[in-house]
């Protein structure tokens, strides 16, 4: 199937996708959350009839629109990059993966596109209630689009509902419902969207804190903070809850990722969770080096996270790489051996079919069927390739969790001070409020780093490595595209930040917006 693997090409393709996805994810979480916050603000306006709430709604809507445009711009690249940079992937799993993308277009993008125009330009063209309905629909549409793309991503993390067809050399869907309702997909959706709500709440708090520090638009800022803190606190608690669920599922579907998240090399019972640690970056599977330069462990916590009880082993990287009979874990070496049998027998089957040798085709097919679950492993060169980057996954996970915990405390404090109307008495807390949005972006990006780096080398977990999934391009072509996108996205990001900063400085009274 793949005669030659150009790792440089694969790495440029990965870098380009990571670049696009990370830029896209700067804008998407704000869209997801701010759309709902705008809907909350406008609902209060419609309920109270107070024009100040309308002004407040319009201010946040302006910032939403600036952010939304660039999110759309980076999103289209992401969708088509599956074709341009991962064309083998697009053929091999397009029968399954294409469906959620098309459904996303039908059920989500058109809702956004239609009601976005009403939300921004319909204030005097439709009734007040119809306008409010449109604002809510933009929020629903935005989040529905997240649902479908996260269903697709969830399927990549835990492929179900499909079967490999040796005649077409692709995976074909058997059960759409199991793809959509997969526990992994739902978990991805709830965790990612609620993190978006959290980030948007931080954004509103940050901008409002800045106003309070500058002693401008105080009432506006306090109202915004009150609504954002309630939404943010609920979201951050839900993020923690779905994060726990996510880890529990990851333990079952992607044990290697969980092991990398914890830099857990040897499984033990019960397994502790590393609260703080400095990983040894030189440690390799099977060697005798210490995994940590320094660490503080909470005993039994990882077992609790993975099994929801204090008994049970969480397998380590070495268990998963070299196998562990006691834990009934098949090692990567054996999977690679069987994978290579699958690759060879698939080739024999195709050749026999081409030459019209039915007996040889049947014989090869039988061998293939016995080993097809390992097909993807057949393209790995070594057992080490099956292990993702432990330091990156480990640190990204800790960054996400620690900041997520901090945000819960932060919203509690802000809510308390807001209720007591004492926010302005604590300028240091207000300064932290301004800083918090940047921490929110760091946490949000770190979450995706855990998800995507932690599942390497797989495009489709256990089925299709990235080395096979890429397009047949030369690495120079993809490298040029990488820098083109880097230049374009960075220029647009600078424009977005400058415009956003100006609009914020103009405040709710506004200038030209």
């Amino acid at each position: 199937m793949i005669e030659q693997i150009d790792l440089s090409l694969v790495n440029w393709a990965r870098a380009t996708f990571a670049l696009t996805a990370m830029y896209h994810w700067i804008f998407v979480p704000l869209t997801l959350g701010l759309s709902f916050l705008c809907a909350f603000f406008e609902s209060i306006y419609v309920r109270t009839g107070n024009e100040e709430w309308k002004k407040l709604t319009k201010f946040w809507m302006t910032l939403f629109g600036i952010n939304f445009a660039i999110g759309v711009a980076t999103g289209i690249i992401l969708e088509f990059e599956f074709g341009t940079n991962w064309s083998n992937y697009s053929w091999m799993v397009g029968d399954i993966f294409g469906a959620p993308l098309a459904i996303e277009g039908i059920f989500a993008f058109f809702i956004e596109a239609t009601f976005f125009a009403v939300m921004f330009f319909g204030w005097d063209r439709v009734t007040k209630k119809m306008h409010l309905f449109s604002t809510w629909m933009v929020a629903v549409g935005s989040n529905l689009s997240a649902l479908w793309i996260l269903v697709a991503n969830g399927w990549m993390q835990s492929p179900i509902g499909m079967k490999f067809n040796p005649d077409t050399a692709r995976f074909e869907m058997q059960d759409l419902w199991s793809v959509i309702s997969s526990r992994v997909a739902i978990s991805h959706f709830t965790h990612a969207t609620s993190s978006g709500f959290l980030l948007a709440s931080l954004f509103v708090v940050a901008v409002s804190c800045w106003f309070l520090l500058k002693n401008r638009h105080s009432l506006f800022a306090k109202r915004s903070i009150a609504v954002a803190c309630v939404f943010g606190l609920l979201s951050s608690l839900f993020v923690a809850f779905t994060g726990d669920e996510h880890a529990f599922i990851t333990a079952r579907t992607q044990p290697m990722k969980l092991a990398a998240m914890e830099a857990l090399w040897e499984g033990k019972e019960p397994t502790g969770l590393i609260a703080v640690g400095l990983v040894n970056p030189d440690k390799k599977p099977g060697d005798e080096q210490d995994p940590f330069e320094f660490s503080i462990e909470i005993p039994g916590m990882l077992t609790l996270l993975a099994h929801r009880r204090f008994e049970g082993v969480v397998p380590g990287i070495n268990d998963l790489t070299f196998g562990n009979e006691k834990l009934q874990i098949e090692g990567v070496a054996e999977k690679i051996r069987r994978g290579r049998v699958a690759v060879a027998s698939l080739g024999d089957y195709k050749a026999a079919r081409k030459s019209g040798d039915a007996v040889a085709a049947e014989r090869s097919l039988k061998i293939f069927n016995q080993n097809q679950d390992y097909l993807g492993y057949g393209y790995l060169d070594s057992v080490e390739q099956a292990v993702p980057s432990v330091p990156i996954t480990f640190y990204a996970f800790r960054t996400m969790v620690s900041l997520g915990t901090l945000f819960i405390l932060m919203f509690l404090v802000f809510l308390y001070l807001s209720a007591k109307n004492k926010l302005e008495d604590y300028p240091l807390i207000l300064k932290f409020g301004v800083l918090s949005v940047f921490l929110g972006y760091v946490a949000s990006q770190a979450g995706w780093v855990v998800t995507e780096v932690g599942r390497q080398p797989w495009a489709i977990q256990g089925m299709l490595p990235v080395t096979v999934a890429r397009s047949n391009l030369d690495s120079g072509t993809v490298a040029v595209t990488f820098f083109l996108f880097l230049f374009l996205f960075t220029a647009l990001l600078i424009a977005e930040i400058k415009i956003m900063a100006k609009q914020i400085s103009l405040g709710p009274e506004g200038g030209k917006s």
Partner: protein
Amino acid sequence: MIGSLDWSTLQQLWWLIVSVVGSLFVFLTFVQGGQTLILTLTNDDNEKNLMVNSIGRKWELTFTTLVLFGGAFYASFPLFYASSFGGAYWVWIAILFTFVMQAVSYEYRRKPNNFLGQKTYEIFMFINGSVGILLIGAAVGTFFTGSNFVLNDYNLVQWTHPLRGLEAAFSLFNVSFGLFLVFLARVLGSLYLANNLEHQSLVGQLQVSAFNNLLCALPFLLYVLIRLVLMDGFAVDPTSGDVSLVSGKYLQNLLEMPLVLILLVAGLVLVVFGVVINRFMGSVRGIWPSGLGTVLTCLAVFSLAGYNNTSFYPSKADLSSSLTIYNASSSHYTLTMMSYVAIAVPFVLAYIAWFWRQMDSKKLSVEELAADDKSY
């Protein structure tokens, strides 16, 4: 009922669905056409802002339809998605670039402190409306002229031309097709704006612009039509699936599928009719017959490419690698499931139409824009 449809019927149904989405996209390129008019047709900033804000309220629909076109192709004909996007790499990257430029331009254009300046964003819009549409046309032109790719036994694509898709822009047929789409978009843009704006002098100019752009489009249209009926086409043997070059294949398709011929003729007549009533009868409703005509014409073009045992994405490098709606499609199961999903499409179209009507029932005026602090 859908569950009992056989695979080939579903493949044909999905070619129709993709064609409808593609045709609606071409209609909606009135946004792109309008973008190419703002630099030349306006006399002052008020007129420019009026035009930008009129089409700016629809840009997302066009954009979304393009995304859906890609998504629908991915779901229904993944081998095309993989072969074309992964093979004709540079042409698609160039197209995508122009749409990224467009996506931010409306929102950022007149915002203070916008880093690149108003003019830059207007140039972005122009590039999207001209180069973007030209390249899309050139890419669709390869449905008839063929592309340079080979598929291996595992259906993985290898492009055989170093320009990786940009070579499509060096074919006279493809370029003519692309230029026809550019001028058609300008026709539609002029008609839409004439219908949507309350500005007497600008509307008068737009009515003339629609007619002039139709005149510009005609030579390219004629060349495309003449070449289409004369050129060799990529025919598929229905029994063996083998692809071969057949003289006058597309003419044969037209004659063997009279409905397609009717669609093509009716479509072109409607396009011209819309322009004529705008130019000579003082009407501003020409966008509707011309829009419908555009959809019918595009449906005919897609039908010529995909139906009647024709390869819709032929390979010049290796005829046996050519894609047909039968060998490039998703599985029976996936097409069945997606057909259930597609039942929602008419409802989606209905609410879009309803809100379109709500938003466009009152014409856009300079006064309204001046009072709207959210205008583009």
